[in-house]
């Protein structure tokens, strides 16, 4: 298990390196320099002096290869560069906002798991029932809905009309502030989890070893507890891992909608003003998070399914 763990952890490194390169390339091929667009607002051209100063300060006039070397050596020392606008180190900006984002992402996933998995389970145990039909219609609707729209409607209903919850903001990290954004963000993974859980349970129930379990004289409840649950867990863990990617992506929109001070809203604001070092750094950190989560999922997977380690 230790060797497997180490191997999976080391597998992250090449991917991170390639992603870092990809990000550098994407932001280097653009026509025109960023400094120009940074100061250009609308139709008024930017002050050439300011552009020159910024280019000087950030070394944007240097040849590509030199910029690349600086980028790589800085990265190796965990230096993500300096913001064009605030002149603060990007890593500090990200650190300030990381916790809020993690809080939101984890809360959303927990909500999705706690509601989605039992729904999928119950639906599969009573296929064709009212609960099953409602769950499946709900799932396909949840997957087709723009999350920020749902968030907007919930904000209207629960915050503005009923006054039960605050409509936006972090509110010093109070739980009440977390509810609306987390539920909104959790809807898509919830729908997907309900769907995969249902399909997975139906699949397992048809497996030969379930017939063996019945032949032992086990009650339905024990069959589900002893033999179905664990096997479906493998599927759920995989789905959670895959869903984290789109959850992180969606979080950007939801953070913006609820004015949640996470790295997602930092990214959107930086894209809007083309603060490239911040954009690059944020994306890199997000990818790193996603990879870490996926590796963790793989490790959990291996802990549940003994067949994985044997490759």
């Amino acid at each position: 298990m230790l060797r497997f763990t180490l191997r999976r952890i080391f597998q992250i490194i090449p991917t991170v390196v390639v992603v870092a390169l990809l990000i550098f390339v994407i932001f280097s091929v653009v026509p025109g320099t960023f400094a120009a667009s940074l100061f250009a607002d609308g139709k008024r051209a930017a002050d050439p002096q300011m552009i020159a100063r910024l280019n000087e300060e950030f070394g944007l006039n240097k040849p590509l290869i030199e910029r690349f070397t600086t980028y790589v050596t800085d990265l190796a020392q965990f230096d993500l560069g300096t913001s064009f606008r605030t002149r603060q180190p990007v890593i500090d900006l990200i650190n300030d906002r990381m916790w809020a984002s993690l809080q939101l992402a984890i809360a959303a996933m927990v909500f999705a798991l706690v509601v989605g998995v039992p729904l999928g389970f119950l639906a599969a145990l009573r296929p064709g029932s009212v609960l099953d039909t409602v769950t499946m219609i709900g799932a396909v609707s949840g997957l087709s809905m723009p999350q920020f729209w749902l968030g907007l409607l919930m904000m209207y209903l629960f915050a503005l009309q009923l006054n039960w919850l605050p409509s936006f903001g972090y509110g010093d990290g109070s739980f009440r502030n977390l509810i609306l954004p987390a539920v909104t963000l959790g809807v898509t993974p919830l729908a997907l989890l309900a769907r995969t859980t249902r399909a997975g349970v139906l699949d397992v129930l048809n497996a030969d070893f379930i017939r063996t379990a019945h032949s032992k004289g086990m009650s339905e409840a024990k069959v589900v507890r002893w033999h179905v649950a664990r096997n479906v867990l493998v599927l759920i863990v995989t789905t959670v891992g895959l869903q984290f990617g789109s959850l992180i992506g969606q979080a950007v929109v939801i953070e913006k909608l609820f004015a949640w001070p996470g790295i997602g809203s930092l990214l959107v604001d930086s894209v809007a003003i083309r603060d490239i070092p911040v954009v690059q750094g944020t994306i890199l950190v997000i990818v790193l998070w996603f990879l870490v989560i996926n590796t963790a999922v793989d490790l959990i997977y291996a802990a549940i399914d003994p067949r994985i380690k044997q490759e």
Partner: protein
Amino acid sequence: MTAPLLDIRNLRLGVALGRSVHHPLLKDVTFQIMPGEAYGLVGESGSGKSITSLAVMGLLKKPLAVFGGEILFKGQNLLSLPKREMRRLRGNRIAMIFQEPMTALNPLSTVGRQIAEMFVLHQGKSWGEAEKLAVEALGNVRVPNPDRRAKNYPHQMSGGLRQRVMIAMALACNPDLLIADEPTTALDVTVQAEVLRLIKELCAARGTAVLFISHDLGVIASICQRVGVMYAGCLVEENETRALFENPRHAYTRGLLGALPRLGSRSAHGRQRLVDIDSIIADRSKLTETRFIAPRGAERGQP
């Protein structure tokens, strides 16, 4: 004469197609198994052997349903037994081994734990005790290093070992009846012989009756005292094993025997072709009770 352990009377079973319509698969199947006796059911795929055994276990799945007859186990009709009572019998008094040792065990659970479940379910043991008993049970089916093997997952074992695990599991609670549904079909020939001998010896030693299901008369002959031949949902012939081999009465049985290679037969009877039966399963919906064997088999065209 002692009372039969299992007494199946006029069992009728089929696919429910609507409220009252059904498509029959078993027609008035009747046979008895005495305590400690090994009884073989032989027949081709689809002849109804497996669903007979599933009916005894009460494990028929939805479109399949029993339409008539009785299954008496120690004089008690299993078909009218409440679910809870049936569960108590299943695994405990009547146990079953399946054909596919590859998929019949849960891949995510150690074999020790899967055997231990039997003791927890039927003997109210704690998990700790049960695991110890499981190791013992593995030893009884002659698995080498049982204490180490108990911690293995099914994928770490060969087919033969897995089938031994199934046997250990089935015999864990010393059942009165063991149903073995083609337990050796998926195994290598050499392993087959070992597993067969194991079943035979263990059941003989414990006085467990066996309902052995196979399409292979040779396998049945090596283990069973009596044989029933099934064809198209009917029990067409039943006899002592030796008598059946020497004097097959039914055309289909003769066909089955003709398809069996025999050691030394060439020196006795000269070079002979093995006789084959039409491999197509008869379309049961077109068969009438009276002529179901007539259109096929080795006897076709003979007076």
